[in-house]
């Protein structure tokens, strides 16, 4: 459960980073806040800033939103013991990590400029992937109670002290 919660929180952070870059690419807001390095504008105006007709950050928004929704669905009480959610999260995180790796490669070796927001997103996606993979590799027994374990004891609760009958 902790792992899914961590993934949800990280996805929320990544979602807003991607949302900022997407809105900026669409012309909202002034100059991008990027520190003194000045790499963000170079990256944002390069030919690789648009992928299949959409700004790259748009795919980030969609990807992080998907991870967030799946993580929140996996946190429902009924879904907590289901392992399939770990599989879905690991799959989404792997796809996200591959796309992030491709973009980071472009920044380092093709565009030769580093965008801090992109690095931030890459760190978030890598953390999501590490946690999702750890959850995926966890033995089934750890995720849900073994089938032959005794039924959980239903705690009747602390009995109320007997009161004296009213006089």
């Amino acid at each position, binding site marked *: 459960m902790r792992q899914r*919660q961590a993934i*949800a*929180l990280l996805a*929320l*952070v990544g*979602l*807003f980073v991607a*949302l*900022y870059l997407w*809105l*900026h*690419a*669409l*012309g*909202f*807001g*002034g*100059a*991008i*806040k*990027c520190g003194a390095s*000045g790499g*963000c*504008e*170079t990256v*944002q*105006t*390069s*030919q690789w*800033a*648009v992928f299949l*007709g*959409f*700004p790259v950050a748009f795919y980030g928004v969609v990807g992080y939103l998907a991870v967030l929704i799946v993580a*929140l669905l996996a*946190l429902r*009480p009924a879904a907590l013991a289901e392992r399939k959610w770990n599989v879905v999260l690991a799959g989404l995180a792997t796809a996200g990590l591959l796309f992030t790796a491709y973009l980071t490669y472009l920044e380092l070796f093709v565009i030769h400029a580093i965008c801090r927001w992109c690095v931030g997103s890459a760190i978030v996606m890598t953390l999501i992937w590490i946690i999702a993979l750890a959850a995926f590799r966890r033995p089934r027994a750890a995720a849900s109670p073994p089938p032959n374990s005794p039924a959980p004891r239903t705690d009747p609760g602390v009995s109320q002290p007997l009161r004296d009958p009213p006089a």
Partner: protein
Amino acid sequence: MNRFYVMVGVLAVVLGIGVFALLKTGGGSAPAAALGAPPTVVDDSFRGYTLGQGSAPVEIVEYLDFECPVCATFATIQMPTIKDQLINTGKVRWRFRDYPLPIHKYSRFAAHAAQCAGAQGRYVEMQDQLFSHHQWAQTGKDPSGLFRDFAKAAGVDPTAYDACMEAGRFAGRIEYSRQEGDQLVVDGTPTFYANGKKLFTNLRRLPNSDDFKTLVDSIIAHSPPKPRARPEHH
């Protein structure tokens, strides 16, 4: 568990405010021409600089903002191919109109610099300078000196350029173009129209040169054939 959802909610609100603040704030000081109330509208019957032949069957009008990164990407990446395939082949006449967004501190100033260069027949060269050295749009610093260097690199006489910029000679023209864009429901930059019809309205899709080629070929294929014109003699 409930504490977790409260944490998610609080984090979402904090991040939302952060993104809003980042989009809202500019940086650095602005030159006089970039700030202040929008200038008075002046219709000097100017309708934008164009590329291509007057007889081209398709006219594309682009409303652009010089500070917009997507406009810069489009100008530097897609436009060279569009020039080769559509403009230089006589299929398209391309018209540039200014639509400086109020959220961009220097786009009106940059548009004015381009117009001052245009007064000396160097609009396209100045536009190339402004879009291909687009880092100025990120620093938030006063770009006056840089634009003057761009103008010189574009082959503009600096003395006439300085006089034009100081007088704010084309401020009213730029505002006219912006209000014209408002009437045509320009909702972002760049926005394109082909023979008066708004293009690429789905989800602010960013077109590439292939999209324009397909579109232009389709318009030409569906246009009724013109009667054969008599050759003109000049």
